[in-house]
């Protein structure tokens, strides 16, 4: 007879965010293996894509900007760049992973607004089409240009961990990395996992439950199911160099967390047209406008 599965809970800090993972296993060896695989996956992704680590692959690419030296990339980096290009094309250039230089002007520690000259200087370093790349190499041609996978890698990590655990026979679980959620599969009793999205205009959470798929958010609020802590999110428009206006927050539900995350960011970037764009593309979303009005379209998912 098959033994009953038991729940494993993990809470830790990774990718600059509090993370919570829960999954069901049948034996302690499986638990131990799964935990080590998760840690390995996250530390590997940080090692490659963290802007805060000077020795990461992304830092190496950024440091070499304008130096004449290109950087060799592997299949994963190629996949992420291809994905970023797709986002760039789908958004008419709004979703641009070279927007990193704007972050320095609008960082949370800044007390004053940047000058027009500073904005113009930063905008000169932005532009996906400036990147020189092949399937094996990438090069940023202007000194100071930066790649930033901020809107992609954490979500990709959630998808990757879910797949890693599935590959190891784990069928039931939920991954939450800094508010971005990916479901491995329903709870063993067949129930969906309860999720709460906080409405930034008041304290009433929107509750829903997911059997599968993912939920990711963008904006100035935190979403939680087992979350605490605070997250700051500044979505900067690469064309104006300024923070977007129109929406406070957007959450998207779709199969893959990386897709949910980039669509949420894209909606924020659309600003005042964001809501119409969400509807037009028939996305499953929850969003809050700047005046506090909320909208939602959650057709395929159960609201509790």
């Amino acid at each position: 007879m098959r033994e009953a599965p038991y729940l494993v809970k993990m809470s830790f800090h990774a990718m600059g965010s509090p993370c919570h993972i829960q999954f069901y296993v049948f034996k302690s060896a499986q638990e131990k293996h799964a935990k080590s695989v998760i840690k390995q996956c996250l530390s590997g992704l940080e090692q490659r894509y963290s802007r805060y680590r000077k020795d990461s692959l992304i830092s190496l690419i950024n440091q070499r900007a304008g130096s004449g030296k290109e950087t060799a990339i592997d299949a994963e980096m190629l996949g992420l760049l291809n994905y970023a290009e797709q986002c760039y094309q789908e958004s008419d250039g709004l979703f641009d992973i070279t927007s990193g230089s704007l972050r320095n002007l609008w960082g949370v520690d800044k007390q004053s607004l940047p000058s027009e000259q500073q904005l113009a200087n930063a905008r000169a370093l932005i532009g996906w089409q400036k990147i020189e790349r092949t399937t094996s190499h990438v090069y940023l041609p202007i000194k100071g240009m930066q790649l930033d996978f901020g809107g992609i890698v954490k979500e990709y990590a959630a998808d990757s961990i879910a797949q890693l655990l599935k590959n190891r026979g784990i069928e039931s679980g939920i991954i939450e990395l800094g508010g971005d959620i990916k479901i491995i599969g329903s709870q063993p009793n067949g129930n969906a996992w309860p999720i709460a999205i906080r409405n930034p205009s008041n304290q009433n959470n929107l509750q829903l439950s997911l059997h599968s798929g993912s939920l990711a958010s963008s904006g100035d609020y935190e979403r939680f199911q087992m979350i605490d802590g605070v997250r700051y999110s500044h979505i900067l428009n690469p064309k104006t160099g300024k923070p977007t206006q129109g929406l406070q927050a957007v959450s998207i539900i779709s199969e893959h967390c990386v897709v949910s995350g980039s669509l949420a960011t894209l909606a924020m970037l659309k600003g005042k047209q964001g809501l119409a764009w969400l509807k037009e593309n028939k996305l499953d979303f929850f969003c809050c406008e700047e005046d506090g009005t909320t909208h939602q379209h959650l057709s395929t998912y159960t609201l509790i």
Partner: protein
Amino acid sequence: MSLIERLSLAALALPGLLVGGEAQAGRAEELYHADFQYAHYEESKGRMKVDVFELSAVAPIGDKITASVDLVRDTISGASPILNIKNSDGKVEQYLSGASIFEQRDALAVGLSYAFDDVNVSFGGGVSGEHDYLSRHLNTGASWTFNKKLTTLSFTASVAFDEITPTGQSDVKNSKTSQKYLMGITQVINKNSLLQSNMTFAYHKGYLSDPYKAVYVEGVGLEDDSRPRHKFQWAWLTRYVHYFKTLNKAALHADYRLYVDDWGINGHTLELSWHQPIADDWLIIPRFRYYTQNEANFYQATFDAMDIGDIHSSDYRLTGFGTLGVGLKLTKSFHMAGYIKEVKLQMAADYNDRKASYQIGGNDEGSFDDFSFYMITASINMRF
């Protein structure tokens, strides 16, 4: 396709999202592959026709190991040259076997490779057999990528044990052993070019003659084909690849291969191909190839009783000649979001003209051995 479908499709190319995939750098082969290939080779003048059916599969086992299996069936029919004779005018003519030859060769090969971070090691083996022939082989290899993945060094070693029991001579069993070693380096020069250089050494020992070939000795008659019982071969391939960003990422491949063996044959191959991507995952590859070799030092089209030694052959493969070839290959890839992730269809046609007079530096052997051949290949490659 809707926006969400387009993005999901792009996301599915990420290694971490693949079913069975792993979000880890460095390992390229993370998918199941299944390939089927059919090729038809045909020589002019009613000579040999070969049909090749090949089935191969690659599967990952866990995080690090990749297993592969490869099955091939060749069917060979048509006539093949047995010897040359001098006619009453003193002209050399080639004498072919009757057109009834039908052979079937079956081959099976299996392999395992293990990926460390920068090092890949592999082991493999296989058998191939015809009704009169059995070959067993083992191989091992290692490759090491370093210098920020710009440089790859590779080594392979293989050994083969062959037995031949010629038809009609069933009490005779001949054998040979072969060893082959390859050392290679691939260097990425910059984002637009790479250089590859491979050196191969091979040593064969045992029965290296062809039991179905004979030599014509003027005034005497026929003698069996008789070659040295050992052979040392050395080959050096240099390949340069250059990508042209402005031409939709087209690539030029230029290969030069030098071949030398201790039977006295020196060969040179020059091959140029142009890989042109066109819209919607179509790739068109025209290619040009020139090969030339001089004759082995014991080769003669026919022999005199005076000059024939113990070692002698009139095999057309050991003579001096040149071959000019042109070819065209078309490939089309389909990327899908379902169970099958990618399907690649390939079609290729090659035409080659072999003439004694194409030999570099000249050749006065005459045209008795000239022929042309073509090959048509179709394959389907699937990734799951």
